[in-house]
């Protein structure tokens, strides 16, 4: 019997016909590429504005994005994460040539991941009531609900097939993309807008992560911009945590037949997806659960481990996280068996949006024939058997398949495999 969650045969390719992004390292594919391959970090220090509480500054990676300029299909005020989601989705649809009238709305589904969509507005709302002693707005509920991004995107495109929101912490958007693949393969829909968004760089949320001791402690280096930009060092022996970031990334996914029928250009193929659960601990990563997820995704894609030419790791730069992941990668690929990088070093930990943005890094690697560097880390921790892409991005003109991992608090693992079109 096959292990639970493992496909017994490949699931079939899904066409990626458009992508859109709002991120700390750029809001266009060109800007994203430039930072990605140069390993240029967007991480900077943020002072926490918490009245009466003194906390050290934290590293963050914010996006240069004007949420007020985004038109809300609902005419309800948008949370910043929802505004980012709409901008990314509209860019993806534009790139794919997916416009109203050009598809059957009954066959369009929206699949969206976010760990805490609406978190920023919810925190502002609480401040309104508790600190400012002002009243709640009538739109507070619909602005902060976890499915607000998916609902607004569905309204923008009049989607009738599905509007599903996934909340699995840091695996949310990888799961949303994978579940969209499954829905298309199963014939429930023909085309999907899928991805994820997260924006919660608010004092309360940042203080919560700081309290967990997973953010890089900046100490005296907080005033040194170059040191802060280089503070997150995935897979380094001296790694000590991450920076929180904010982002959205969206894709138009469709069955190859649907893409061909409407004459859409296929930019890349999503070949495999698997998700499972560690089932052992709320935060501690589990190498065997991760390895099972990677093996299942390979089976779903009909590929062998040796076919993968680039692995975009979850790579949070925490002591325990990177150790478990280095072990799971070595188990699946053999020691040094696949080039690896974590792009969190430059765009921060994007939480629910992480899987979607890191998939974009993988797709850009396929498009450019170049493997994005693991910035800020000169040498991998000698305890790891990893082929880490350190110092510089690595040309790889023959790259055909890339694997992208997302491992979440709560134990959800999600792995996507993308292939050159």
């Amino acid at each position, binding site marked *: 019997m096959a292990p639970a969650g493992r496909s017994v045969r490949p699931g079939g390719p899904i066409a990626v016909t458009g992508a859109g992004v709002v991120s700390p390292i750029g809001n266009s594919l060109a800007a994203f590429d430039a930072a990605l391959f140069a390993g240029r970090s967007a991480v900077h220090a943020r002072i926490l504005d918490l009245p009466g509480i003194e906390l050290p500054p934290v590293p963050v990676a914010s996006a240069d994005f004007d949420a007020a300029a985004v038109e809300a299909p609902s005419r*309800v005020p948008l949370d910043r994460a929802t505004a980012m989601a709409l901008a990314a989705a509209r860019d993806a649809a534009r790139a794919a040539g997916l416009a109203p009238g050009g598809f059957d709305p009954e066959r369009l589904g929206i699949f969206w991941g976010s760990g805490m969509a609406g978190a920023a507005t919810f925190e502002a709302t609480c401040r309104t009531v508790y600190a400012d002693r002002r009243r709640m707005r009538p739109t507070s509920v619909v602005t902060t609900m976890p499915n607000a991004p998916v609902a607004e995107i569905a309204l923008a495109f009049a989607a009738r097939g599905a509007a599903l929101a996934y909340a699995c912490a840091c695996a949310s958007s990888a799961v949303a993309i994978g579940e969209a693949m499954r829905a298309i393969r199963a014939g429930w829909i023909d085309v999907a807008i899928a991805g994820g968004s997260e924006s919660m760089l608010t004092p309360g949320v940042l203080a919560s992560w700081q309290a967990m001791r997973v953010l890089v402690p900046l100490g005296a280096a907080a005033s040194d911009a170059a040191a802060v930009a280089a503070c997150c060092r995935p897979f380094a022996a001296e790694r000590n945590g991450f920076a929180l970031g904010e982002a959205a990334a969206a894709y138009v996914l469709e069955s190859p037949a649907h893409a061909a029928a409407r004459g859409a250009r296929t930019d890349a193929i999503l070949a495999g997806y698997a998700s499972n659960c560690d089932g052992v601990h709320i935060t501690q990563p589990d190498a065997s659960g991760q390895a099972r997820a990677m093996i299942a995704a390979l089976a779903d894609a009909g590929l062998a481990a040796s076919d993968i030419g680039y692995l975009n790791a979850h790579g949070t730069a925490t002591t325990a996280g990177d150790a478990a992941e280095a072990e799971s990668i070595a188990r699946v690929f053999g020691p040094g068996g696949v080039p690896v990088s974590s792009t969190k070093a430059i765009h921060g930990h994007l939480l629910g949006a992480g899987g979607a943005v890191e998939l974009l890094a993988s797709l850009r690697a396929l498009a450019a024939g170049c493997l994005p560097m693991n910035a800020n880390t000169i040498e991998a921790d000698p305890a790891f058997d990893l082929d880490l892409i350190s110092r510089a991005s690595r040309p790889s003109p023959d790259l055909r398949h890339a694997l992208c991992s997302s491992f979440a608090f709560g134990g959800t693992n999600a792995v996507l495999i993308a292939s050159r079109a």
Partner: protein
Amino acid sequence: MTRPTFAAISSVLVEKFKVDAAKIEPATSLEQLGLDSLALMEFVFAVEDRFDVRIPEERLDPRQAGVTLEQLALLIDEAVAVRPGSDAAAA
């Protein structure tokens, strides 16, 4: 109804809710504005905030049929008159 009150209400509708200025008359009813019930509630909140007043809930349900902009303006004038610190309240 005072003219400045009506003018302020009109500007909220045009600027914040993108209502066509040509549609805005004292006799226009709230349901004729083309806003859904949630947007109507936000609209009343925005007008109240503009004047720093609260219209008691029992005096106005914006979802009720037939409430006109003139009636809303009169309620605002009333609330302004009794607002603590206002000239009228002091007098």
